[in-house]
């Protein structure tokens, strides 16, 4: 089973410390909710894990190896980082095929994932015509292409319709039950409370909590209350790298 091991990770963008000596392990077989105010470093963490951003110091390993050294990365890690990360003039199916070809993943697998994510009828439409929810579904299909043991989802519920949210909830549950490592960031406390087994909370690039969901919420009325009690001093919305309000 594959875990994500983050050791002493620091990422500076100019004078800003997006990540500040972060050490945490994301374990397999459970859904880990990834929480924190805007600009806390959640997306940066995922980007460094995926080798997109170079850390200032520290390491992020997937199954003991840096992502960039994995021989066939899509078969190890699937990620939904940015729902619109597809060329707008390409069709959904061609978009997935360009990714699949790099790993010799058959076109039949692409078609099955389009089916599973409810995009089969839109497969030959250009991505620019897609709603945000449809783009999220397409991003989810891309993340699952290689049937990976590790799945990273950055705010996957954005723009999803109720049906899509239920599908995502069932999917993340099933992936974790199959023994996979699932890390899902979200600002929807109710959704995280329903789906997560474990929580990792960041504030200003530092680890604030790493605990099972029930222990985290034990002395509070809800996950939301527990979250605010922990993060309010760290919610600096003027911080750069801040994402959508």
């Amino acid at each position, binding site marked *: 089973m594959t875990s994500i091991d983050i050791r002493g990770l620091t990422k500076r963008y100019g004078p800003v410390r997006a990540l500040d000596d972060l050490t945490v392990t994301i374990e397999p077989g459970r859904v880990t909710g990834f929480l924190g105010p805007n600009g806390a470093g959640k997306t940066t963490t995922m980007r460094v894990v995926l080798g997109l951003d170079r850390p200032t110091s520290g390491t992020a390993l997937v199954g003991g190896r840096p992502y960039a050294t994995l*021989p066939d*990365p899509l078969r190890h890690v699937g*990620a939904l*980082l940015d729902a619109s990360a597809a060329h707008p003039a390409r069709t959904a199916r061609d978009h997935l095929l360009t*990714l699949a070809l790099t790993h010799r993943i058959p076109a039949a697998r692409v078609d099955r994932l389009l089916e599973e994510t409810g995009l089969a009828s839109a497969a030959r439409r250009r991505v620019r015509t897609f709603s945000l929810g449809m783009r999220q579904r397409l991003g989810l299909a891309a993340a699952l292409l290689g049937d990976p043991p590790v799945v990273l989802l950055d705010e996957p519920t954005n723009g999803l319709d109720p049906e899509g949210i239920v599908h995502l909830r069932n999917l993340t549950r099933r992936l974790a039950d199959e023994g996979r490592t699932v890390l899902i960031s979200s600002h929807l406390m109710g959704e995280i409370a329903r789906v997560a087994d474990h929580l990792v909370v960041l504030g200003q690039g530092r680890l604030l909590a790493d605990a099972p969901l029930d222990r985290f919420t034990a002395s509070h009325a809800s996950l939301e209350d527990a979250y605010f009690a922990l993060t309010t001093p760290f919610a600096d919305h003027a911080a750069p790298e801040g994402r959508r309000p």
Partner: protein
Amino acid sequence: MTLLPVLRSEWLKIRSLRPLLAALAGVFVATAGITVLVHAMVGKAEAGGPDFEPVGGSYYGLNFGHLAAVCFGVLAVAGEYTDNKAVRLSLMAVPRRGLFYAAKMLVVGAAALPVGLATGFGCFLGAQALLGEYGVGLGADGALRSAVGCGLYLTLLTLFSAGVAAVVRSQVGALCLLTPVVFLVSPVVGSIGAVRDVAAWLPDRAGQQILHPHPDGPLGAWSGMAVMALWTVLAVAAGWWTLHRRDA
């Protein structure tokens, strides 16, 4: 991870975007089309004059058509850097950036070369046919060299533009940088006597020497092509350096 699957992926990226195919077709249509049009209208009227030179004149349309090659090279690379940052997904699939970049450049070059050669021979044969008794064959001095050279010129210009786009990482930025150079700076500077010998070393000027049987200026046919190849190597290397150094 090996080169072949990445090449197939990059090839699909080109095939699946209509603007890229349009730009590629535009190289042939604009260059050969304008050449044929001009020769059909004024070809024989000017033939036989003291400055008449049938080979170099065949590539008149290149003055316009080569912008399509610039567009193709820019769009093929900068398409990864639109607001959508498709490059992030590309690099998730192929995290070895050297492999990703090499495959992209190989495919862009491999798509441009046959189109460029078809354009070169299309221009030459079309123009000579319309020149009638003034026309020459491919066996004429420098003729075959010019047609092949036109193909090489368009391929190198495409790769040069692709390299610049990889540095600038923006369609608009790369086109704003390249279009004035190819359309304005080079022709204008090239026509001013005092600096003509300097302008001859610009990539497009240098590469176009091969279109003439007897190039004038400081560079010859193949030495000019070599200068253009050097520019291309520098641009592609700078693009690689940018991709290698920067966060995606």
